[in-house]
């Protein structure tokens, strides 16, 4: 099939993915709205949970167990500290199914784009965007194997819809061959790991945002979420994986720069921003371990770090001069 045709199918898949993401977003939103209309006294539900837990443990000798979720956060016990991650409602299940479907379409779109271009589909801004968002949603979808984070569905499907819209409208370019500077296996490694890191940071940021909201108020839909301290723990674990991947990205970038430009570090604009993001996340890791910074301050650092990534990708790519001029725009 000629490249142009493959590319038009790719675009079609991406548009379909956008449509399905939108539906998934609606399903999640409806679910959230419905949950917020459920009025249940937290105390009552806590007891039910306790009873359920005890029942499922069948009286085994595990004193102290039922209180574990709260024990990590002395002095920060919310009313709902022991509330477990709520079981997914029907809306959330539909939302998740639609998200997986959209993700499959999206992934297909990215792969076709790669076939059309005859290389990895991440070498100009449009391609970074579609692949990056696919990886981000992928992290969310696959996190399901680890833990039910369906309450982030609204965040992720909303993000995916908006970002894909921006990407197709503002960044689309027809596939072109790789300029010599990009012809390197480092393109495959460095850029892919960067998008993977972004996926984890995105997940962590979603959790951090919810943590902040939950800290401030705890009603309606929010009550069905895990406790703020628990959200913070999850956000940290995900963020740390992102940080490791970002550290690798930075180093792989330096090795590549050394191959392509003859120096491993030259404070090129993109290098500056990669560094800034890395340092902000180092600050985040420290903040998590510092009295007085744990909690919402550290959450803000994760959010700022992610904002810097988005800024780096959009504004820096397009408007800042530098050697990394590969936006293709």
């Amino acid at each position: 099939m000629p490249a142009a045709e493959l590319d038009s199918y790719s675009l079609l898949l991406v548009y379909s993915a956008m449509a399905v993401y939108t539906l998934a977003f609606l399903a999640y939103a409806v679910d959230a709205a419905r949950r917020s209309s459920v009025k249940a006294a937290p105390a009552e539900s806590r007891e039910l949970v306790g009873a359920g837990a005890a029942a499922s443990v069948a009286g085994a000798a595990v004193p102290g167990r039922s209180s574990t979720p709260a024990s990590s956060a002395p002095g920060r016990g919310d009313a709902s500290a022991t509330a477990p991650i709520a079981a997914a409602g029907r809306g959330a299940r539909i939302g998740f199914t639609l998200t997986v479907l959209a993700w499959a379409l999206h992934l297909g779109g990215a792969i076709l784009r790669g076939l059309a271009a005859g290389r990895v589909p991440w070498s100009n801004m449009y391609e970074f965007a579609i692949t990056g968002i696919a990886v981000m949603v992928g992290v969310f979808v696959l996190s399901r194997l680890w833990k039910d984070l369906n309450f982030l569905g609204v965040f992720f499907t909303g993000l995916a819809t908006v970002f894909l819209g921006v990407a197709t409208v503002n960044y689309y370019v027809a596939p072109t061959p790789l300029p010599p500077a990009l012809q390197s296996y480092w393109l495959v490694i460095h850029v892919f790991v960067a998008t993977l890191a972004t996926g984890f940071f995105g997940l962590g940021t979603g959790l951090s945002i919810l943590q902040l909201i939950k800290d401030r108020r705890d009603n309606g839909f929010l009550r069905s979420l895990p406790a703020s301290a628990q959200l913070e723990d999850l956000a940290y674990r995900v963020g740390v994986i992102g940080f490791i991947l970002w550290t690798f990205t930075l180093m792989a970038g330096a090795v590549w720069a050394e191959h392509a430009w003859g120096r491993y570090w030259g404070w090129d604009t993109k290098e500056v921003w990669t560094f800034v993001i890395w340092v902000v996340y180092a600050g985040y890791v420290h903040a998590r371990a510092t009295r007085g910074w744990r909690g919402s301050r550290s959450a803000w650092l994760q959010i700022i770090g992610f904002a810097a990534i988005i800024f780096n990708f959009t504004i820096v790519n397009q408007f800042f001069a530098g050697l990394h001029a590969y936006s293709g725009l």
Partner: protein
Amino acid sequence: MSPSSSPGPDAASAADTASANDPMRPGDHVDAPAPEPRSGSGPKLGIVGWLRFLWRQLTSMRTAIVLLLLLAVGAIPGSLVPQRSSDPNGVIQVRADNPDLVWFYDALSLHDVYGSPWFSAIYILLFTSLVGCVVPRLAHHWRAMRAKPPRTPARLSRLVGFQTVPGDASDLDRAEGALRKLGYRTARYGESISAERGYLRESGNLLFHIALLAMILVVGLGSGFGYNGQRLVVEGRSFANTLSSYDTFDSGQWFDDASLAPFSVQLDDLDVVYETENLNAIGAPLDFTAHVSVTEDGVSREAQIKVNEPLNVDGADLYLISNGYAPRISVRDAEGEVVYDEYTPFLAQDDNMTSLGVMKLPDGLAEQLGLRGFFYPTTGQLESGAFTSIYPDLANPVLSLQAFTGDLGLDAGVPRSVYALETDEMTQIAGGDSGTDALMLAPGQTVDIPGGLGTITFEDVRRYGVIDVHVDYTQTAVFWIAVTILVSLLGSLLIPRRRLWVKVAGGRLELAGLARGEDPTLERAVDDLAKRLAGDGAAAADAGRAGDPALGRPTAAGTGVAAPEVGRPTATGSGVAADDAGSAGSTGASGGTGTRE
């Protein structure tokens, strides 16, 4: 959950957390003992007291965070304002465009952010803090690694994952063996075992911070010995690795000419491949390959340099940085004597290699002659009638020259760029407003210079490449330090550090754990140990738990019956034993509250 970092007040009292074995942390670390409430009027601090106070401030976690954030913010201006190091032309441009702001740029070193006093101050403070933080921890960790695990707390029941399994003092040996096999260091205290693992977490953390320090030192000092020279070479020409043959040359402060390796490089051919089929990218470069002959110690060899494949010659790396066309132009005087015959490099102005070049002939003709012109590798015309290149390869090359006579300004002793022509003191005799058309030449053509000065011939055209010769003694070291940073970071963030205790109590064994640092898998570790100890005998106790298969216990040694082998490896499943327990509970709960849905 993450029983992790702070075990909670109860556990704290039970386990007497701040044992000498703990990783040492700055005073404001979440694991450090809470500060004593400050009394309103303490004793006055002497000088030493003040210094100690300041040092403690500087080496606190809070300061590290603030300095890290300052470093991040401080790095940003360097991406907004052009930097001398990465964009010298941008610097000139900005200064020319904003003459009123030049003082401001200079006052804040905004063209030199990463070497500026204020940026240096931030990272020097940060690294001082780092040293102050790491050195005591290093000593402490050294001792802790040699020490025995701390005493078993009096009451285990308040600790994480507390449970009992059948057994008595005779099982302690077995327990100790199991713990050791799992990588714990163990010690006996009466009828109990105290075990600790994960010292590598702290080792990794320390190594990580030390490697950061090493990175700064190596980059800062090592780069002082290197150099970086650029040379434009036309095909068929060569240059030697000597100071005088470079067009531009930068070197570190300890650089010594004698360290220039004696080699020379000839550019035999520069192959450029352009896209010809993809309609969206006609003319996009696909490949640059410089075929070169390298001569070292009188021996020549052929080699090539590509954009992502530098060539190493005797410790120096050679990069192909850019390329362009160098038309060979000869000028004859009125008598037909050749007065000029050179390949003149033209600088590309756009993607299709429309190129601009300048020639200066102070001698040989009746008057000084200056030529400035465009070279179009594939000539086309804009709607305005102006010429332009429409494809970067040599399909229809044409040279168009404007000619000037008068004073080239070369005698004034003012250095002039070879790529710029000062025409203030000159009269245009061809092109522009001179009334005569610009001189248009295809390869092999000759035209008369207006005014009977002589003739100009466009002999042929070759490509040139700009080759960057780079010697950086830090490269290898920096690479290995980077690897160390990454590996130690992995260790420091992913290795759980924890204590486990096994204690004989009334005909049963009590087990419990305590995390030192972030450790989401602690509960699971205690459960796992319980399994190993319980063996078949405890299948009954397990049966209840087995109802929760989500707790994929990786090692169901000896449990055989009850626990389904989900086989999630501990590290990645990174589980959250307590969470999972929680969600198991929630299943029950939602059953109970099902009517709400």
